[in-house]
């Protein structure tokens, strides 16, 4: 199991946020924390999620986000300690 931070730039709409959470569920990941903040003209959200789960699922989660046209960017950073 690893703890990791995910940064996501996404469309500012409830469906996009729901999609993030549905992928957390599909990956059988657990959420330690999440913040969503509007950016720029308000049409996008910047999200920072702290997640726990198997390392392969962490990678899967970040790559899977890129399949859906709600997400502009997604990066993962493993956390230690």
């Amino acid at each position, binding site marked *: 199991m690893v703890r990791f931070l995910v940064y996501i730039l996404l*469309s500012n709409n409830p*469906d996009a946020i*729901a*999609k993030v959470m*549905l992928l957390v569920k*599909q990956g059988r990941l657990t959420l330690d924390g999440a913040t969503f903040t509007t950016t720029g003209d308000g049409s996008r959200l910047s999200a920072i999620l702290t997640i726990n789960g198997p390392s*392969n699922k962490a*990678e*899967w989660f970040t*790559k*899977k986000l*890129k*399949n*859906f*046209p*709600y*997400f*502009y960017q997604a990066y993962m950073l493993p956390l230690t300690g």
Partner: protein
Amino acid sequence: MVRAVDALIKQMTKMGVECIFGIPGGANMPFYDALYDSDIRSYLMRHEQQAAHAAEGYAHVARKTAVCSGTSGPGATNLITGLVDAWMDSVPVLAITGQVVRAFMGTDAFQEADIVGMVLPHTKYAVTVMDSRRLVQEFVNAYTVAMMGRPGPTLLDIPRDVMQEEIDGVEDIKPEPIFVQTPPEPDVHSVMEAAKLIIDAEKPVILSGGGVIFSGATNEVLELAEFINAPIVTTTPGKSSVPEDHPLVLGVVGMHGRVESDMAIVDSDLVICVGTRLSDRAIGPPTEFEKNRKVIHIDIDASEFGKNVKPTVSLSGDAKQILRDLIDYIKHIAAKKPKSPLINRLREIGEAYDEFMLEQATSKITSWRAIWLLNKILPPDTVITTGVGQHQMWAQLFWKCKTPGSFISSSGLGTMGFGLPAAFGAKAAAPDRPVVNLDGDGSFLMTCQTLACISDYNLPVITVIFDNRSLGMVRQWQNMFYKQRYKDVEYTDRTDLVKLSEAFGVEGVRVESYEELEKVVKQAVRENTAVTIDLPVGKEEMVFPMVPPGKWLSEVKLPPGLELYGKVSSVHPA
């Protein structure tokens, strides 16, 4: 100024939408009103689930995004099974649903349902269009992204008043940048690494999935296999990715795969997986699959790498392009590999299985011999669809595809009732090709109203119902894993499938011999007419080979009485 929905229909026509499958209702009536003046053919289905499956069948054959439609509430929710089916098998389908007017949204209005919320887990993109000026743009986005990257379903939910609002005319709409999913270029170092693995392998196998079909990579898979002399096995969605009369193609692998295909994987030291998500049904436990062999995984969806199986080398991108680069590189650095005796040995195993099964089937009609016969008499470009159950497994074992993309089945979701509406959609896309739905009586009865559409639109589909008056696969599992405690798996004889078909306007025939079956099918193909054939088969039939759930492919159970111990070390009789 134009009605938003008229601008939508104009854009659909411009982008090549030729037909839609659906049912009108209160909330999508403006959409149908706009269709009235267009050249887009609309097929009035009898249930929205069938509309979605018909769109899947159409998309498979036309190799482009297909459109289905339903009204708000139940019209939309009825589409869900078809959309999830398309999600599981990566089929480009766009659903256009009506929604209650914006002022009523969120009030639990009549026929209001949050369809976007419901389909979000199983669509690439779903949106309720709240601004009429965005309607055409959102269509272009949803239609395009369904086919780009890894194909899949999308949904456009349109409140009735949004459709009816007047907007400025729209011209030359392109998908917004985030909807343009261009596959990455093959990574040169990974191509080189994969090439080295292939050259060093002594017993490589190619596992060809459904992604090969949508990528159009059939020739590249064959070229690679011929150069390295590797057997090709397929997943169920990949069954028609390669012609099964090719000497290197062994057939479908997995739980009810061909025994020679399962053994090819068991014996391999390298599996080159192309356009497959490596599901449990195809490969069994991933830990066993990873053991003692290297894995090259090629897929357009990078999230598949490591999801089930950890690859030795992964290559993200379009399968055709990656294979092209890989083949070119391998040909530069290595000579063609000589023919391996292993392939002949594997083929002998398959022939022994076929021979054994066909010898069993002398006194009465059996499903497998009927499919074997159909395979001999139907033209090579025949499109086959199936329901889900034992007949589907017999079809994947005994039907040999000769044309890429000609076998359409519900592989991932396993949706009973898929076959007939999918066949209708396939026939709409290819009216000049024979389309044959191989169905079970259980599956057929779930969506048999599609017969009305077959009759209405004169799109002649041949249906062969393998009629065992039971839910055969459930019965088989109750036999094998639940101590033969048969519960709710047997139907009565009271439902007359011939009369039922004729009630919908499609000729029905009950056949009692292989000769009759051949005669009826040949006549229907020759005259391009629809027919429903009720073919009685025994409910005691059990589909073997079978790998018990959770077991490795080497633990495949063979038909009782079939001995392959002399040919292969690790197969067991049932």
